[in-house]
C-alpha cells in the first residue's frame, strides 16, 4: 500500500510504554502496534512487540518537540514527538516521498506536516 500524506494528527505506529528513568542504563521501550485495517474491520493478527530505543534515557520533550531515534533490533528509525498531550512515536519518514519528518513542522497541539510538500 502506498499511503498518502495526511494533514492530521499522526497515527502512532509505535506506542511509548515504559520510560525506565530510574534504572541504569536507562532505556525507553516502544511497542510496535499490530497492523490493522484503517477502518477497523479486521482483527489484529499479531500481539504487540516491544523494542528498545537506542540512546534514549528520558522523554522530556516539550509540546511541539520531536526527536529521531533508532530502534534496537530493527533497521528503522522512529520519530518521538510530544503532540501536546503525550509523547508518542511515529514512523520517521513521510509516507508520500519519504521525507525525514524530523525536519517537518510539529505544532504544539500535535499537527505534523512534511518539510517537502506540507502534507
Amino acid at each position: 500500500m502506498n499511503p498518502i500524506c495526511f494533514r492530521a494528527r499522526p497515527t502512532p505506529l509505535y506506542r511509548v510504554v515504559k520510560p525506565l528513568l530510574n534504572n541504569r542504563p536507562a532505556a525507553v521501550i516502544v511497542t510496535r502496534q499490530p497492523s490493522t485495517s484503517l477502518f477497523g474491520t479486521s482483527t489484529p493478527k499479531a500481539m504487540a512487540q516491544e523494542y528498545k530505543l537506542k540512546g534514549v534515557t528520558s522523554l522530556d520533550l516539550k509540546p511541539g518537540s520531536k526527536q529521531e531515534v533508532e530502534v534496537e533490533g530493527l533497521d528503522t528509525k522512529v520519530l518521538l514527538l510530544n503532540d501536546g498531550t503525550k509523547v508518542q512515536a511515529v514512523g520517521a519518514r513521510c509516507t508520500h516521498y519519504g521525507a525525514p519528518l524530523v525536519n517537518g513542522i510539529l505544532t504544539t497541539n500535535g499537527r505534523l506536516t512534511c518539510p517537502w510538500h506540507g502534507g
Partner: protein
Amino acid sequence: VEERVLVVGGGSGALGAVEGLRTNGFQGPITLISNEGYLPIDRTKLSKALMTDTSKLQWRDKDYFESASVEIVDDEVTGVDFGTKTVATKLGGNYAYNKLILATGGTPKMLPLQGFKVLSNIFTLRTVHDTKQIVDAIGDKGKKIVVVGSSFIGMEFANATATDNEVHVIGMEGAPLERILGTQVGAALQKAFEGKGVKFHMNAGVDKAEPSTSDPSKVGAVLLKDGTRLDADLVVLGVGVSPSTQFLKDNTIVKLEDDGSLKTDENFCVVGLKDVYAIGDIATYPYHGPGGDGKYIRIEHWNVAQNAGRTAAGHIVAPTRKPAPFTPVFWSALTAQLRYCGNTIGGYDDVIIQGSLEEGKWAAFYTKGETVVAVASMGKDPVMSQSAELMALGKMPRKSQLKDGLDPVSLGPPE
C-alpha cells in the same frame, strides 16, 4: 437514515473526500465514478517525472477501496438531476445520492490556432494516457520538443526532458512563472533552466503549427508571431485548464461561473444547492488566508483539492462543525524543488528575498503592506511548511521582521 455519498471524479480531491468520510466514521455507502480508467493517482508525478505505470502512480490499490467499502465505477457522468438527486452516465447508468461531491477536475486547453487541432504529436498533459503518448513520441530521446506555455506544466515537462532532448519553451510572459512567482524569481529560474540547455522564447505569441515535410499528418514546426520558426518532433501544450463541468453546462438548476466553475461556501457546498459539494479545480471558494479577505478564488493544486475533499467530508459527517482552515500549498520540480504556500489573490506589492537566488537557496516572501500573503522557497526547507502552519494560525511574521532577516523556522513549533 443511511446516507449515500456519490463522488464524481477520481483525482486528489475525490481521494481526500473518500478518506475523509471513512476516517471520520462515515458508515454509509460511497460510490466513486471516474472516467480516467484507473484508480486515483498521484497526478503530480506525470508532469514532474513522466511516470506511466499506474500501479506505481495509484495512491491505493483495489483491495484498499474494497476494504473501505468504496465502490469504484469506470464511467463518465453526463448529467445531474438535482431535483430527484440522481446522476446519469455515458454507459446509461443512473445513480442516486443523498450527498453529491463533484470533483471532476480540469480539462487542458487547446490552442485555437492553425494546425494545432489537426496535426498529430501535439499533446496536452493531464492523464496517464497523455503521458504514455508523450513518452512514446519521445521514444529513444534526442527529439526536438517545443513546449507552449511557461507555467508549471510546461516548465516541469521541460525540466523532465531537457537532459536528453532539445527543448524550447514559448511563453507569453517576460519570465517563466512570472504571474505566480514574480519577475525576479522567474528570471532566476529561467537562468537555471538555461543552464540545463533549455531555450526560452519569452514575450512571444504563437502564430501556427506547420506539418512535418516527411509526414504531413504530424507537426514539424511551430511558428511565432515574430516569424521565428522552431522545428518540432513533438509539441506539448501547457496553456492552462478549464473546469471540467461540461455535464452541467445546460443544467437548468445550477449556474456555472464565467470560467465554468461552481461557486461554493467555506465548506465547499455549492451555493444555491442542497447536499451538493464542489472541490478541486472546479470549485471557486472564499479564501480566508492572509490577504484573502474572503475573495472568491479557484486554485488548481493537488493539496487544495485534497483539503477541500476532507473539508466537504467533514461537513457531511458533522454539519455544524466549523471547517479547519488550510493554507494552500504546492511544489514543483524546476531544476531544484520549489515550494510555495499562501496565495496572491489579493495582490502583493513587494517581495522580500532571504538567501541567494543565484545559489538556488532562497525564500521569497510576497507581501501586501506588512502582511505576508505567500511564501516560495528553494533549498530552504522547512521554511515553506513552517510558514504554511503559521499562516493557518494567523501567526506569520510581518514583512519588516523578515526584511530584518528573521527566519520563520527560528520561531520554533507553531502554537
